[in-house]
């Protein structure tokens, strides 16, 4: 690897204007893309704005679009890219640009505020909650979410249609709703909200969220589709409705 260089095209600029700037960085073994960005910062552009924290794929801060693909910079090994060509690094497209690779992700935090809180059933006789592992396995998958917002970024519902942000919570939030709806202790029902206010119906299950998830959460199959089916139970399935009424009367 001695003497080799990575040629980087890094987006520099703010909401008003910007462009891709080229930087050349000496290659070292085992580098991930975030190392290369740090090297640029330390030696060539001290003010290059980038978010990062753990550098181990656990905090979900360093999301960007690398050669056009939404990924975590800290989990993108340089030897997984074609380094004969320049590598483009751009900020997430779906959120307003603050500067360079940093975007304003407050949309996600605002949507999180609108999630009806966890409301547990009363504790058991010993003052604790007994839960079975089989009841929490699938919710634990959702709890793996590191909130990198790559799924929100790649989702075309808001990526290409800014106006949908008003009424579409996005994949990250659907994962959160699924975690609450399937939580063995929770007693809230969020299905009507999901249908009417959170835009579950806007999802056309094209699965880009699942493709980019660095935690490999099966967002579409395990969170969104099951939520859609639960909404169907409540609002679009007359048979199920009738059966529910029947059994409710019987009991």
């Amino acid at each position, binding site marked *: 690897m001695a003497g080799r260089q990575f040629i980087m095209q890094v987006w520099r600029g*703010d909401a008003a204007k910007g462009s891709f700037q080229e930087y050349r960085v000496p290659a*070292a*073994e*085992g*580098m*991930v893309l975030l*190392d290369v960005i740090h090297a640029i*910062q*330390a*030696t060539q*552009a*001290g*003010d*290059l*704005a*980038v*978010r*990062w*924290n*753990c*550098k*181990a*794929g*656990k*905090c*979900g*801060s360093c999301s960007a679009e690398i050669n056009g693909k939404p990924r975590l910079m800290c*989990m993108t*090994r340089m030897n997984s890219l074609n380094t004969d060509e320049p590598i483009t690094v751009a900020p997430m497209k779906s959120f307003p640009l*603050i*500067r*360079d690779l*940093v975007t304003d992700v407050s949309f996600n*935090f605002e949507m*999180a*505020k609108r*999630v009806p*809180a*966890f409301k*547990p059933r009363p*504790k058991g006789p010993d*003052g*604790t*909650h*007994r*839960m*079975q*592992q089989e009841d*929490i396995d699938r*919710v*634990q998958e959702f*709890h*793996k*979410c*590191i*909130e990198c917002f790559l799924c929100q970024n790649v989702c075309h519902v808001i990526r290409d249609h800014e106006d949908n942000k008003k009424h579409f919570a996005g994949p990250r939030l659907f994962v959160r709703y699924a975690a*609450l709806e399937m*939580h063995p*202790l*929770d007693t809230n029902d969020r299905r009507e909200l999901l249908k009417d206010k959170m835009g579950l119906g806007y999802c056309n299950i094209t699965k880009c969220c699942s493709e980019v998830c660095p935690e490999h959460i099966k967002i579409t199959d395990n969170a969104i589709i099951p939520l859609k089916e639960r909404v169907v139970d409540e609002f679009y399935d007359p048979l199920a409705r009738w059966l529910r009424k029947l059994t409710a009367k019987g009991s």
Partner: protein
Amino acid sequence: MAGPYETHEYDVIVIGAGGAGLRAAVEASAQGVKTALICKSLLGKAHTVMAEGGIAAAMGNIYPEDNWKVHFRDTMRGGKLLNNWRMAQIHAQEAPARVLELEEWGALFDRTPDGRILQRDFGGHRYARLAHVGDRTGLEMIRTLQQHAVHKGIDVYMECTIARLLKDGDRVAGAFGYWRESGRFVAFTAKAVVLATGGIGKAWKITSNSWEYTGDGIAMALDAGADLIDMEMVQFHPTGMVWPPSVRGILVTEGVRGDGGTLKNSEGKRFMFNYIPEFFKAETAETEKEADAWYEDKKNRRTPDLLPRDEVARAINAEVKAGRGTPHGGVFLDIASRRSADYIQKRLPSMYHQFKELAGVDITKEPMEVGPTCHYVMGGVRVDADTTATTVPGLFAAGEVAAGLHGANRLGGNSLSDLLVFGRRAGLYAAEYAKKFTGAVKAGVDQLASVEHELLTPFNHHGGENPYSIHMDLQECMQNLVGIIRTESDLKKALGEIARLKQRLTRASVEGHRQYNPGWHLAMDLHALLEVAETCTLSAIERKESRGGHTRDDYPKADPSFGKINLVTRKKNGALSITPEPLPEMPGELKQLIEEQK
């Protein structure tokens, strides 16, 4: 408060939104006072997410014999008795309730077959004690607290760095900082301030800590007149990744060893049997056969692979120095030969993921290469054990920024429980303090003009020192001279180097403008980082013995007279002083608990 700055008024402000800060804010808000939470990063990104293994709490779900007394004993012995006994007692007593509380807020820990919280073995803990979620317990904890805080409507100021505490006479009266996004300054006035800013790991080169760990809270408290203690006590976690270079230092959870991983040198030998200290002889297995029996039945004596972290880190260090290290200067950590691939993937999913993606190593088939990495500072701001009050009125501290609970060495799993137990207490007593406080909150604005000038200085220099270079040189210095094994001459050299770096920092220059400018942010963080590096080095010179996280090559033995004192750091008129002060006296019945051998 008048002035040209954006200003917010609160009863309580909490600085730092990791586990301790979130728990403090939740508690303060529940007490009915107006609370704000301020953090350097986005909410939910704090270092707590990196905690892997679990939360230590003597719930006795696996071993009914476990109770707070055993946990207290383990914590004190692990800390080489330098701990504040009262903190260790409160911690052991309250941890189980704090864990169950998280469950009430939506956390989902792994379960036992009868539906209770599963607990895992960890170094230095006599019984399987760590409530956990695979190997991503910190994430579960921070997300649960974060969502709970959001639902309680607590005001959160994200990507807002606090640079100075504001005072009104002797009292703390608020804080001053800047929005990272815009670079604009912002002031908070508050009746009480809780520091929950974490540690100082970014002063070392090989570290498991993120960029945020620059010791801001410790430095601000010191500047505000608070006492620090035990600043020489820095924990090097025995198992960080060592290869490739770019991931050097990233943590490998102790859970790997708790779940069956063993340490081996390049000769394939389980070397830990050669490093069992007298202090832990009675409870540690002496042969491989005996240690293997422990994995099957925990009533047997424990494997030395799970000795407290300081012992293991020193042992690895010694093996590598003796030429029995791996090609990349670590030792092997092998779980593949004891556990099935399924078991490993279920119990340690993020370790599997981390090695696979970053090092190209499949830990279900091959051993990992690991070596010590700077992980935690046991020292920090001196606090009252019950209330977490610092020596400055109105200023409270909880979590890694505070000192006392862990003594000379922290046991794995005791950090997350520390955050919960003392985070809650900090919020509670800060709220109580704020409620009792009457009269106007006056934070002198006159302080701010000079602070502003100081913070903006790097923009006025051109072609000066690069803050990134200063930072790298500091990390190099601390790594080489104030590392795991220390000597007086190295430490003195380090002091000289730190003084030079401080000089260089006055000439630091940054390019660009104030909007989201990491170079500028680093230049400001370096003030704190250099200050904590200096206090750590000064304290290390004064403690002429080896104990826990502090090992002196020139004083290789523990000295009982040092075992009775804390080293207190104070700053008066810009000068640092280190003073030995006696530890608080432990009541007889607790002393007995510690001496009981079994």
